[in-house]
């Protein structure tokens, strides 16, 4: 909110406290001041009178002789271009060296004519054009005829000698958007007395009238109305206009301005109706109307059930708390008014104003909730100001619907609990002083303090609220730093958290970079999901088509990231991401791994580690091994589940304990093309099973005491014979003596013949209880060769 320093000082003595000091004190106490700016700026200013003004032929300029002081020779020649420049005008003169918002005035000839200053418009002093008329914006300011020539405190004369503090109010302190409540708050911060105007009871005048108010909905529990049978519409007093400007509002006429001014003072939005234009002397608030309504600015609005509507004589005239109707608007001809000060349900007003896109000042205030006594305050103050500044008379008695009675809350707190919560050692005197300045009327009884909460502090409900007031107003600087003293607890990672960290270590060790991509994806990423985690969840109101669904798999997000990096030539793509994916009623966590290009490469040293299928297979298996899953628990088999995203012959499914974990391998060239990628290799693995399953127990096997013997063989087999078949055949034939089988070379080519391949293997034999004899090995070795020949038609290579 915009807080006028000058206006505030009408209620609190701010002497000795500059605006910036005030801002610091307020910020420290929780009312954050985000900016400080003067209403208007200008040095070396003086009020002058144009004695003569001659046109310069062929230009828009005038040569003036302007009097700027009491003596006859206090006259300056000033050239002015404003169309309204003329003899007899009282004007604002900026003298040589004057600093204005747009720069400094230097005396210099204008088109060869001596000019010793500048005649100013208000906007040239920094007054926002929105507060000025078109006429004021088109020329220099015309001061009243009685303006004192020679007066140098021009901003003071204009009433613009004010500073605006931009205060950011937290939602619990909406009460401070009332100037009076803000004054109370500032008084409590500064420990200074606060004086509100003497308004109370001013509305207790008036004859018995015929006007009736009522409400047909509980969303309007209380409605104050007061008919004023005579007012005189005219201009507002200058001080009021200035304060309205300071608060960011424009002046319209005295009656409308009073309604706004009282709202700013008390926080209560008011509506003044043109009494003569109301079709009946009756107002009913309803929330069961459906219709199209034309509001103040001529725009049509669709009213639905649930919107609070003001009706009079059965006809809707306005949207309650948001906007009044055009018919009963106050204008220059208005001579009688009806004052409305009501309580409208905050949530209803907020919903309607957002739906209708009518975020008016009144709607915002109702939305944040109002204090129970604001209505009475606002009616009292209205009567007082209308009488004084709009010749109001012919008041009728205030009519009230509902029960306006108010019982102040009491909140009890103990000093010991307060200190216990805060970790402080405040004394009762310190606490009592704070609460006294807040007008909480603390009554102390031993350790206990009973507070009676003022009506406007609707946020104070519990002891903890009292404690907050105490610490924020005494200041957080008094707070010590301690650590919780409590029962010991064990901090450790859960199994899932350990698995995630292990993945990160292993993947980064393998040169992969961790990425985090967006959860929200477009429709096509859902349509083309890999092994979708159920039916996709759509947002009720997405911000865009690109962020419409919660992703059901990671593949497209990761490929998109690779696409970006390829396009930006950031080097071979090497990524992994761990993320949850969601479907209707399900949640899964997944690991995605992608590479496109080499994992390691060094031409100087002849090193190249291609990021291919086998690199991925090795990486995934070493990860599973690291997590305790290897051997027979893991099964790699032909990919039959997804050949849309994956190359049908260069990808594989991975299973663990007979459960599907995921797929890895080359991305299908047709799919890779969609993302402009060359040869991406990808894996997407479900992690939940890894989190939930225990790895194989770690157990030491005694070291072999007897030597191992290795024999190399090369066999020629049909190309269809898989490595797995070869290994299994050897393994079975070789029985317990085989310790390891290693394939170290594969050759296909002319020397072998079409449809054949040569596989070189090293078989390592070892026994745990004796040194193997040559004959033993040869026997087994020959069994192996026979088995290869008989079962796989694999012959020893010549």
């Amino acid at each position, binding site marked *: 909110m915009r807080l006028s320093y000058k206006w505030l000082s009408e209620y609190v003595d701010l002497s000795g406290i500059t605006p910036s000091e005030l801002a610091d004190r307020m910020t420290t106490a929780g009312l954050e001041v985000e900016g400080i700016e003067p209403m208007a700026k200008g040095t070396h200013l003086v009020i002058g009178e144009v004695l003569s003004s001659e046109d310069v032929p062929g230009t828009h300029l005038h040569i003036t002789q302007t009097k700027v002081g009491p003596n006859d020779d206090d006259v300056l020649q000033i050239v002015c271009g404003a169309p309204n420049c003329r003899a007899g005008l009282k004007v604002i003169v900026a003298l040589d060296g004057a600093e204005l918002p747009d720069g400094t005035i230097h005396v210099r000839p204008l088109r060869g004519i001596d000019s010793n200053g500048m005649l100013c418009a208000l906007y040239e002093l920094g007054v926002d054009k929105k507060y000025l008329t078109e006429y004021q914006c088109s020329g220099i300011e015309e001061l009243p005829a009685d303006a004192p020539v020679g007066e140098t405190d021009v901003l003071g004369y204009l009433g613009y000698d004010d500073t605006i503090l931009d205060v950011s109010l937290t939602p619990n302190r909406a009460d401070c958007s009332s100037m009076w409540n803000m004054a109370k708050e500032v008084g409590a911060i500064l420990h200074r007395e606060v004086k509100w105007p003497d308004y109370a009871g001013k509305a207790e005048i008036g004859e018995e009238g015929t006007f009736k108010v009522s409400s047909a909905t509980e969303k309007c529990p209380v409605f104050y109305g007061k008919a004023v049978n005579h007012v005189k519409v005219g201009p507002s007093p200058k001080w009021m206009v200035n304060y309205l400007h300071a608060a960011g509002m424009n002046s319209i006429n005295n009656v409308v301005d009073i309604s706004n001014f009282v709202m700013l003072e008390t926080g209560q939005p008011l509506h003044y109706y043109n009494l003569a234009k109301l079709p009946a002397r009756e107002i009913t608030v309803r929330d069961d109307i459906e219709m199209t309504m034309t509001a103040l600015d001529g725009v049509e609005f669709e009213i639905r059930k649930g919107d609070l509507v003001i009706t009079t004589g059965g006809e809707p005239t306005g949207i309650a708390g948001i906007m009044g109707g055009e018919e009963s608007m106050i204008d220059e001809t208005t001579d009688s008014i009806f004052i409305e000060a009501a309580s409208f349900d905050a949530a209803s007003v907020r919903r309607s104003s957002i739906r209708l896109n009518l975020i008016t000042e009144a709607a915002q205030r109702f939305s944040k909730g109002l204090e129970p006594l604001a209505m009475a305050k606002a009616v009292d103050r209205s009567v007082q100001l209308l009488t004084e500044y709009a010749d109001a008379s012919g008041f009728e008695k205030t009519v009230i619907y509902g029960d306006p009675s108010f019982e102040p809350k009491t909140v009890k707190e103990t000093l010991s609990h307060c200190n216990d919560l805060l*970790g402080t050692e405040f004394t009762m005197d310190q606490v009592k002083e704070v609460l006294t300045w807040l007008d909480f009327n603390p009554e102390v009884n031993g350790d206990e303090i009973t507070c009676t909460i003022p009506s406007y502090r609707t946020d104070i409900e519990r002891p903890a609220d009292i404690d907050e007031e105490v610490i924020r107003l005494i200041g957080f600087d008094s707070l010590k730093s301690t650590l919780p003293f409590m029962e010991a607890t064990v901090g450790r990672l859960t199994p899932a958290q350990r698995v995630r*960290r292990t993945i990160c270590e292993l993947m980064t060790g393998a040169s992969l970079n961790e990425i985090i991509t967006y959860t929200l994806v477009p429709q096509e990423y859902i349509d083309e999901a890999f092994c979708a985690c159920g039916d996709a*969840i759509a947002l009720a109101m997405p911000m865009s088509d690109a962020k419409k669904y919660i992703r059901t798999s990671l593949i497209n997000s990761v490929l998109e990231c690779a696409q970006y990096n390829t396009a930006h030539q950031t080097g071979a793509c090497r990524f992994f991401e761990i993320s949850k994916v969601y479907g209707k009623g399900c949640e899964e966590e997944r690991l995605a791994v992608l590479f496109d290009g080499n994992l390691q490469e060094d031409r100087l040293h002849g090193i190249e580690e291609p990021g291919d299928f086998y690199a991925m297979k090795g990486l995934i298996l070493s990860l599973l091994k690291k997590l305790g899953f290897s051997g027979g628990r893991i099964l790699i088999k032909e990919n039959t589940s997804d050949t849309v995203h994956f190359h049908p012959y260069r990808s594989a499914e991975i299973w663990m304990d007979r459960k599907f974990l995921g797929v890895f391998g080359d991305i299908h060239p047709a799919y890779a093309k969609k993302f402009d990628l060359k040869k991406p290799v990808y894996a997407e693995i479900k992690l939940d099973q890894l989190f939930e399953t225990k790895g194989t127990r770690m157990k030491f096997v005694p070291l072999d005491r007897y030597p191992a013997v290795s024999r190399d063989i090369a066999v020629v087999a049909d190309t269809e014979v898989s490595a797995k078949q070869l290994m299994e055949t050897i393994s079975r034939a070789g029985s317990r003596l085989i310790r390891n089988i290693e394939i170290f070379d594969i050759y296909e080519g002319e020397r072998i013949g079409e449809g054949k391949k040569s596989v070189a293997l090293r078989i390592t034999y070892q026994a745990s209880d004796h040194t193997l004899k040559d004959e033993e090995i040869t026997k087994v070795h020959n069994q192996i060769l026979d088995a290869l020949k008989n079962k796989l038609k694999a012959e020893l290579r010549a």
Partner: protein
Amino acid sequence: MDRITEVQNEALAAIESAADLEALQQARIKYLGKKGSIQALMSEMKSLPKEEKPAFGQRVNVCKQTVTEALEKAAEKLEAKALEEQLVKDRLDITLPGVKKEAGTIHPLHMIQQEIEDLFIGMGYKIAEGPEVEEDYYNFELANIPKDHPAREMQDTFYIDPNTLLRTHTTAMQMRELEKAKGKTPIKLICPGKVYRRDDDDATHSHQFTQCEGLVVGEHITLADLKGTLEFMANRMFGEGRQVRFRPSYFPFTEPSVEVDVSCPFCNGKGCGVCKGSGWIEILGAGMVHPHVLEMNGFDSEKCTGFAFGIGLERVAMLKYGIDDIRNFYINDQRFLKTFDRFD
């Protein structure tokens, strides 16, 4: 000079003159080989009279030993020389680059997350987890933000249906943990995770971001404990000597609520561009758990108190590493990611 002396002298001379191991080997064959000169002397012995044989044999043995020793000595010398020559030949250009070894990197947000996790695990906290697709009940209701509460305007929500949403803060996890605890204390946890709000993405806003909240509930937990804990965290994250300053604020789930500033690590509180001259950087929100939140979750708010804090990891990373655009975290440009491939 007799035959033995003659052979010995000849052999010693040949050994002496051997320029390399090859020449030495030739000498060994010539004098000590099976068909060598010394072996030849031994065979001469057969033709000697019986009484001369022992003396002759002894002398030949002495000769053989002398020559063998000389050979060994010479071999040692030559081997040393050969090694010396080999070393020179093996000289490397040590200025050539070493073998490139690409290291991958953890995402900077997770780097910071792990740092915080480790810090709090060390203090006996556990790391809680919870769903990103969350119920309104945990995200708002239990956090003291009932329907139509003005605070719901502070964070615009991605709703899925009236009761389901993408969590807007990690507070939802706190609420689940509080509910799970069924009124039992102590509770000490942090809950990091992704959160979502309806913001248009620009340099300082992201519809998806990362928070980490902390929660401690027990007997006699104080606001001063919160300050001490946060000071501990600030020192770990921004270097020793950090100070923490509280300013009053408002969150529906804490009372009192505070904004927390950390003395600027870049200028040590003197004032610089990063802290906009104030010497302080606003880093997180915190407060004492609202008694109503404790009660809704089945705790006796008369008996136990607690503190909670929440920090935005993007903000920490941006401050710490001078990152100027929040979108960097989600674009995942490898040049950006590789900045973080080292110890910090």
